[in-house]
C-alpha cells in the first residue's frame, strides 16, 4: 500500500494541490469569495448542468448498447471472437480528432445519414453521445464481460431447476454477481464522458461546453487560474460524490463468487433468441464501431488518382521540410515503448493497490480506493500544469524527461487495473486463502497458488486497458522534450495541423496503422491469456 500511496501523492495529489493553491491564493490571500461568485454565474451553471446530463445520458446509452455485447463476448463462442474483441477496443486508442472526423463523415453534412435520409446530427448532442458509446464500448465489454465469462452458469441453471423463471434466475443469481463490475464500468464511462474534451469540441461545436473544456478555457485561453481552481474544486467534489455513491452500492453487493475458466462457460449461440441477440450485437458493433473506423481506412487509400497506397508510401519518404517527421517505423516504436513502460507501471501500482484493498477494510482504505479513481475525473490540464510547478527541482525535475509520459499515462491506467482486478480479487473465497494458510502456505505462496490463477485473466484484461490507454494517449505525450521522438497520435495531430493533401492522407494512413498496431497488440495479449489459462482449472 505504501508504494501506490506514494505514487499518487507524488504524481497526482501534490501537483494538483499546488496548482489549485496557486489559483486560490493570490498574493498570499485566499480567494474563497471567488467560489460563490464563480458558481453563481449563469454560464458556469449551464456548463455544470450540461456536463452532468450528457455524462449520465452517455453512460446510460453505453450500458444499454454494450451490455448485450458483454454477454455475447462472455457466453458465446464464435469464430473470430478474439479478433472482434480486439477490434472493439481499438476506438479506445484512436486520437479523438480522427474520430471526430470519422463521425462527421457519417452523421455530418453529406454523410451517410444525410445521403440516405437527410438526417444530420453534427452540432447536436446525439453526435456527442454516439461518439461516447464508440469510445467506451470496450470499457463495458471488457470489465463486465471479463467477470461474466468466469461466472459459473450452473448456479443460474440450478435456480431454474428449482423453479425460478429465466428472468428471476438472472435477476437473483447473475445480476448480483455482476453488479460490482457493471457499477465499475458505469463509473468509468461516467468519469470519461464527464471529462470529455475533444469529442464535445469537435462534434458539439462552440455552443457546447463541459466542465473539462471550461477548465481548459480558463487555464489556457484566459489564464484565469482562480476560476480554473474553483472549477477544479467543483470537479473534485463532484467526482468524490460519485465515487462515494459507487463505493456504497458496490460494498452492499459484493459477495464471494464461484469462478470458473471462461472456456467452460461459452458455447455457440443456440435457438432463435440467442441468434437474434448475437446478430443484434454484431450489427450494433458494425454500425457504431466498425463503420467510423472504416471511414478512416477508406480515406487513407483514397488518393487523387483512385485507390492506392500512395499515402503509405509517402510515410516512408522524408518530409520535404526535413525534421518534421521521422520514419513511420520510429513513431510505432516510440508508441510501443511508452505504452509498455506505462503498462508496467500501471500494473505494479494498480496491482499492489488492488491487493491492499482486498486484504484490508476500514474507512481509510475505502477512501484510498476512491482516491485512486480521481485521475479519471480530474482535468488533464490541471494535472499537467501541476507537474510543471512541482516537479521542477532535481532529482525530480521531470519536466523534460521522457519518463513523465509513461507516468502520466499510468495515472489513467491504474484505475483500470484496480477496477478490473478488484471484483475478481474480492470474489475469491477467503476460505481458500485460509485453507492454504492452515495447510502451512506462506502468505506469498497462498497468493501465488490461490489468487494468481484466478486473477491472471483479470490482470491481462487490465494490462490490455492500460496498454490501450497509453498507446492512444495524446495530452501528456505532446508535452515532452523530444520532438524527434513523436508517438503515432502525436504525428497524426501534427500532420492534421498542416494544409495539403499529402499531410491529410498521411494522417489517415497513420491512424490506420495505429488501429492495426493496437489490434495486433491486443490479440497478442489474448493469445497469452488462452495459452496460459488452459489446464489451470
Amino acid at each position, binding site marked *: 500500500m505504501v*508504494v501506490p500511496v506514494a505514487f499518487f501523492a507524488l504524481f497526482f495529489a501534490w501537483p494538483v494541490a499546488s496548482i489549485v493553491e496557486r489559483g486560490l491564493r493570490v498574493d498570499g490571500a485566499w480567494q474563497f469569495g471567488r467560489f460563490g461568485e464563480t458558481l453563481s454565474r449563469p454560464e458556469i451553471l449551464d456548463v455544470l448542468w450540461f456536463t452532468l446530463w450528457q455524462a449520465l445520458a452517455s453512460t446510460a446509452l453505453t450500458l444499454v448498447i454494450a451490455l448485450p455485447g458483454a454477454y455475447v463476448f462472455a457466453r458465446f463462442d464464435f469464430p473470430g471472437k478474439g479478433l472482434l474483441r480486439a477490434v472493439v477496443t481499438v476506438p479506445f486508442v484512436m486520437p479523438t480528432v480522427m474520430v471526430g472526423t470519422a463521425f462527421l463523415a457519417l452523421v455530418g453534412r453529406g454523410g451517410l445519414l444525410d445521403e440516405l435520409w437527410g438526417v444530420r446530427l453534427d452540432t447536436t448532442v446525439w453526435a456527442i453521445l454516439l461518439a461516447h458509446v464508440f469510445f467506451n464500448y470496450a470499457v463495458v465489454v471488457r470489465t463486465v464481460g471479463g467477470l461474466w465469462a468466469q461466472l459459473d452458469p450452473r448456479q443460474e441453471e440450478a435456480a431454474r431447476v428449482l423453479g425460478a423463471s429465466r428472468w428471476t434466475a438472472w435477476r437473483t443469481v447473475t445480476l448480483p454477481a455482476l453488479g460490482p463490475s457493471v457499477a465499475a464500468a458505469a463509473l468509468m464511462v461516467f468519469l470519461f464522458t464527464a471529462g470529455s474534451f475533444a469529442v464535445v469540441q469537435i462534434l458539439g461545436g*462552440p455552443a457546447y461546453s463541459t466542465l473539462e473544456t471550461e477548465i481548459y478555457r480558463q487555464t489556457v485561453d*484566459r489564464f484565469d487560474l482562480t476560476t480554473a481552481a474553483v472549477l477544479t474544486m467543483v470537479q473534485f467534489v463532484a467526482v468524490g460524490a460519485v465515487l462515494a455513491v459507487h463505493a456504497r452500492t458496490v460494498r452492499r453487493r459484493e459477495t464471494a463468487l464461484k469462478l470458473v475458466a471462461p472456456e467452460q462457460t461459452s458455447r455457440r449461440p443456440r435457438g432463435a433468441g440467442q441468434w437474434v441477440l448475437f446478430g443484434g450485437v454484431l450489427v450494433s458493433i458494425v454500425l457504431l464501431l466498425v463503420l467510423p473506423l472504416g471511414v478512416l481506412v477508406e480515406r487513407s487509400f483514397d488518393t487523387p488518382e483512385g485507390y492506392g497506397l500512395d499515402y503509405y508510401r509517402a510515410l516512408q519518404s522524408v518530409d520535404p521540410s526535413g525534421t518534421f517527421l521521422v520514419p513511420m517505423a520510429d513513431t510505432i516504436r516510440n508508441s510501443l515503448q511508452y505504452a509498455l513502460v506505462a503498462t508496467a507501471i500501471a500494473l505494479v501500482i494498480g496491482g499492489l493497490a488492488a491487493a491492499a484493498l482486498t486484504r484490508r477494510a476500514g474507512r481509510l482504505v475505502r477512501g484510498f480506493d476512491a482516491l485512486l479513481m480521481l485521475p479519471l475525473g480530474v482535468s488533464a490540464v490541471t494535472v499537467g500544469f501541476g507537474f510543471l510547478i512541482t516537479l521542477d527541482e532535481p532529482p525530480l525535475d521531470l519536466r523534460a524527461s521522457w519518463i513523465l509520459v509513461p507516468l502520466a499515462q499510468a495515472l489513467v491506467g491504474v484505475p483500470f487495473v484496480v477496477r478490473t482486478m478488484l471484483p475478481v480479487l474480492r470474489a475469491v473465497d477467503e476460505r481458500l486463502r485460509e485453507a492454504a494458510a492452515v495447510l502451512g502456505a506462506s502468505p506469498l505462496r497462498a497468493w501465488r497458488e490461490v489468487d494468481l490463477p484466478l486473477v491472471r485473466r483479470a490482470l491481462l484484461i487490465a494490462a490490455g486497458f492500460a496498454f490501450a490507454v497509453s498507446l492512444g494517449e495524446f495530452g501528456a505525450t505532446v508535452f515532452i522534450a523530444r520532438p524527434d521522438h513523436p508517438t503515432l497520435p502525436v504525428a497524426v495531430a*501534427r500532420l492534421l495541423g498542416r494544409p495539403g*493533401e499529402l499531410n491529410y492522407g498521411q494522417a489517415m494512413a497513420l491512424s490506420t496503422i495505429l488501429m492495426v498496431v493496437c489490434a495486433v497488440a491486443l490479440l497478442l495479449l489474448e493469445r497469452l491469456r488462452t495459452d496460459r489459462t488452459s489446464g489451470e482449472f
Partner: protein
Amino acid sequence: MGAAAIVAALGVTTLAACGGSGEKAADGPAPKTVTLVSHDSFAASKEVLAEFTRQTGFTVKVLKSGDAGEAVNKEILTKGSPQGDVFFGVDNTLLSRALDNGIFVPYEAKGTDRIPAAVQSDQEHRVTPIDTGDICVNYDKKYFADKKLSPPQTFDDLAKPEYKNLLVVENPERSSPGLGFLLGTAAQYGDEGWQDYWKKLKANGVKTVDSWELAYNQEFSGSAGGKKAKGDRPLVVSYASSPPVEVLYSEPQPTVAPTGVSTGTCFRQTEYAGLLNGAKNPEGGKKLIDFLISKKFQDDMPLQMFVNPVATDATLPELFTKHGVVIDKPRTMAPEKIAEKRDQWIQQWSSLVLK
C-alpha cells in the same frame, strides 16, 4: 518494501530498454546544451541546428510545450525556474501577457539592424522578432471559377450578399487564426465598429468552429481534407502561406495552387523569442537568439514553419514567391492594445456571434 525495489528496477530497465534515447544525466558544470522552449508548430531542419552546434559548440534541445497560448502560460507559471533557456513563439497577441509577467530578461541580439523597426516592439529588447505571418481568408479557386464569381478581396466583400453562407471562421477564444481575424476586423472598423461588421457577417451566414483543423480540413471546400469531407464552405480563415503549402504537399505538385488568398482581409502576426528569466545557460541562450535571426536560420524557416523571415537579407524560397502572395497592407495592432481589449472583445464576440 519489496515492491519499491521492483519499481526502482523497472525504472532502470525501462530506461535501458528505451534505447536510442541517449539522454544524458544532469549536465556537468558547463552545460553544453541550450534548451529552446517553443509551441508545437516549431520546426527547423537538422542541418541548420547542426550548423549552430558547429559555430558555438552548443547542442540545441527543443522542448515543445503545447499550442502558443499554453506554451506562454507555462512559462509564466514556471517563472524563475524555467523549463529552458530561450522561449520562441510568443506573438503580438500574447506578448504583453509575457512581458507583464516578467518571464524574459533583456538581451539585444547581434544583427537586429537587419530587422525592420516596425516589428521591433520592445524598446528594452526583452524580445527579438523572428518571423511574421499573415492570417487571411483563403478561397477555393474552383468554386469561384465554376460559379463565375470573383472571389472576395476585402473585409467589406465578405459581408456582401453574393458571398452569403460561404465563410467559415474559428472561435477567437480557442484558436489563434480566429483571434487574428477578429483583431483584423477591429483594426479595420475600429474599437466599436467591428461589432456592427460582425452583425452583418452573422446575417450573411458566417459559420464558426472551434479549431483551424476543423475549419480547414472539414468545412473548407478548397483543401484536400475538406474535399474528402465534402466541405461546402469555399471561404476559410487561414494563413497567407496556406496555398503554397497545399502545393508543396501534393503528389504530383500542381502548377497552380488550388486555393487563393483574399489579400484585403489579412492580420499580421509577429512571433518573438526571448531569453528566459532564470535560464541555466544564458550564454548559450544569447547565442541561440543571435542564431535565430541569422541568415542561415531565417532562410530555413519559411519551408519549416511556413512563416516569413523578418531579416531583410533573408531569401524567400521559390515556392513562396511563385504560389504565395505579398500582403501589402496587412492590419495589425499594438500588443498593449491587444492585452487591454482582448478578453472584453472575445466576450462581446461570443455573445454576438455564438448566442
